[in-house]
């Protein structure tokens, strides 16, 4: 911007300066020409001159010397041109002669045009030149930055691979790299710790739980206790069982997070569901029907497939009301599990969240559906929930 202003100012200055320089030059020339004409006139009184450049006329009285601009028709060029003219009288032998000399003036527009043209050309060339120089230099300068930026974009916390940045000759970039490296290393370590933490805690809890359970059994076998005390101890056993389930599910979640399920095979979802349904027959009086004839074959870990089906079914069984039948619909690449309910969920958006419980059922760990979600995320399936016709509908689309 500043350079454009400077260029405009210098162009104006150059224009004015060139104009005055040319004017001076022309005037000098006019004076010397006039002098020459006068010398010639002294020698030859009949000198007529070369119109319109030099003209000699006889005049009655002497006039002042005048220098002025005049427009004259130039027959040679067939246009009206601007001339600078100097006229003055010279007395030779008592006779007054008016001597007029003219010089064609370079038109100011022409000068302006020339200057502007030259400047624009210079600016344009300079711009292009600077642009390419800058571009190539910047490219070279920023190359390590952009290479590292790409690496940063590719960086994934989950992969566990350390971030490897290229070194450069630029101190600031190296500083940045160092900071990025220490930041990502720390974040990665924290992430690993966090992942490991759940698993470690769950495992560490198993032994104390085992001791508690063993002691309860020792008490009920070795000491005489009252029926009431036995009730309490029995319910403690159920609570330990709940903790055990919670642990098991937390460990499962941690394992999915750690990508520990790699044994992918073609699994018939229908088969897995049928197997799960037959298991449920022994555990609940609720009738479970399967409808639809589509066969769904998915490549996934078989144990995860059975966890997926079991969790969907057990969720339906747990939250079913009035012993209404539960239905599993098999459709093209999609499975739907419906159970009856009294009203839609208050927060359907949170239903797949960890430890989110819509109902106050005491025996729910709040992890069943979040495991469903996790497994779906792991394989790119889409789980969804909706409430229609007094039914809770949980659907899994196996093709996203």
């Amino acid at each position, binding site marked *: 911007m500043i350079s454009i202003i400077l260029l405009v100012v210098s162009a104006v200055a150059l224009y004015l300066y060139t104009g005055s320089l040319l004017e001076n030059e022309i005037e000098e020339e006019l004076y010397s020409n006039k002098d020459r004409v006068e010398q010639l006139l002294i020698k030859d009184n009949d000198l007529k001159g070369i119109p319109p450049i030099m003209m000699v006329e006889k005049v009655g009285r002497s006039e002042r010397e005048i220098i002025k601009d005049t427009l004259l028709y130039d027959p040679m060029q067939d246009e009206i041109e601007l001339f600078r003219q100097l006229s003055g009288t010279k007395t030779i032998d008592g006779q007054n002669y008016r001597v007029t000399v003219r010089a064609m003036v370079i038109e100011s527009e022409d000068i302006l045009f020339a200057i502007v043209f030259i400047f624009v050309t210079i600016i344009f060339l300079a711009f292009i030149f600077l642009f390419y120089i800058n571009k190539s230099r910047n490219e070279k300068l920023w190359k390590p930055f952009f290479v590292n930026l790409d690496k940063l974009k590719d960086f994934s916390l989950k992969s566990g691979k350390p971030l490897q940045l290229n070194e450069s000759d630029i101190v600031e970039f190296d500083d940045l790299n160092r900071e990025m490296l220490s930041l990502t290393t720390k974040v990665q370590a924290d992430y690993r710790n966090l992942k490991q933490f759940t698993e470690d805690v769950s*495992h*560490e809890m*198993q*032994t104390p*739980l*085992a*001791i*508690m*359970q*063993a*002691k309860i*059994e*020792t008490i*009920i*076998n*070795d000491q005489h*206790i*009252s*029926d009431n*005390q*036995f*009730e309490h*101890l*029995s319910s403690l*056993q*159920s609570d*330990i*069982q*709940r903790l*055990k*389930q919670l642990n*098991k599910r937390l*460990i499962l979640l941690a*394992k999915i997070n750690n990508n520990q399920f790699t044994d992918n095979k073609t699994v018939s979802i229908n088969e897995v569901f049928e197997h799960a349904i037959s*298991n*449920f027959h*022994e*555990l*609940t009086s609720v009738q479970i029907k399967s409808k639809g004839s589509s066969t769904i074959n998915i490549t996934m870990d078989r*144990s995860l497939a059975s966890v997926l089906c*079991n969790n969907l079914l*057990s969720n339906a*069984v*747990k939250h079913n009301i009035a012993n209404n039948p539960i239905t599993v619909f098999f459709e093209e690449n999609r499975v739907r599990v419906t159970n009856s309910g009294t009203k839609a969920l208050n927060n359907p958006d949170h239903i797949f969240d960890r430890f989110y419980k819509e109902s106050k059922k005491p*025996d729910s760990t709040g992890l069943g559906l979040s495991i469903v979600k996790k497994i779906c995320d792991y394989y790119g399936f889409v789980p969804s929930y909706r409430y229609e016709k007094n039914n809770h509908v949980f659907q899994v689309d196996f093709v996203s």
Partner: protein
Amino acid sequence: MKYLIAEDEKELQQSIATYLSHDANVCETASDYHEASEKLELYEYDVVVLDINLITGSGLDLLKKLKKQHKKCGIIIISANNSLDDKLQGLDLGADDYITKPFHLAELNSRIKAVLRRGQFGGEDTITFQEIRLDTLARSAYVDDKPITLTRKEYDLLLFFITNQGRVLSKAIIAEHLWGDDSDLLDNFDFIYVHINNLRKKLTKEGAKYIQTAYGSGYKFIAD
């Protein structure tokens, strides 16, 4: 029978030992790797209950050692880690069973009995309790040598009762034995009641009395 309980948690070790010594079994204990290793070198056991995470070493190493020495003993691994890999590794190395903490002592007992029954450790394929006889290979039951028809669950229940005879079994223990991890799906324990009632009926008047109610809600299988 002579058992070795290799478990570094003293409390758990003692509870297991107490529970298992009820049937006139001899239970020795080891609290760390070296003690267990030493005892296994010196004595013969029918069954070793082996914790994978012993303080001073891995139970799996002990297992490898045992297998190298071709000791004729049943090995049941107990572990706090219920990952399939650990389980498979343990069984591949020659363990006879694998049980994850926390477990019921009655469950451990019935697993030990099952291991013993599998023959080579001096067990038998038949279990006799008064007039009841179970053929564990054919999974069939006889009362006074007359076959009775039992469902799978009823058979499991009867076997569980007989192997844990004289012990108080709460419904939670029975449910977990019969349905494993799925048992938390049970709305209540009515199902067990139904199974036990059916079993009682099939065992005839004579046999039904063995299944006694303990403390109102538990059960105890006992010969009068």
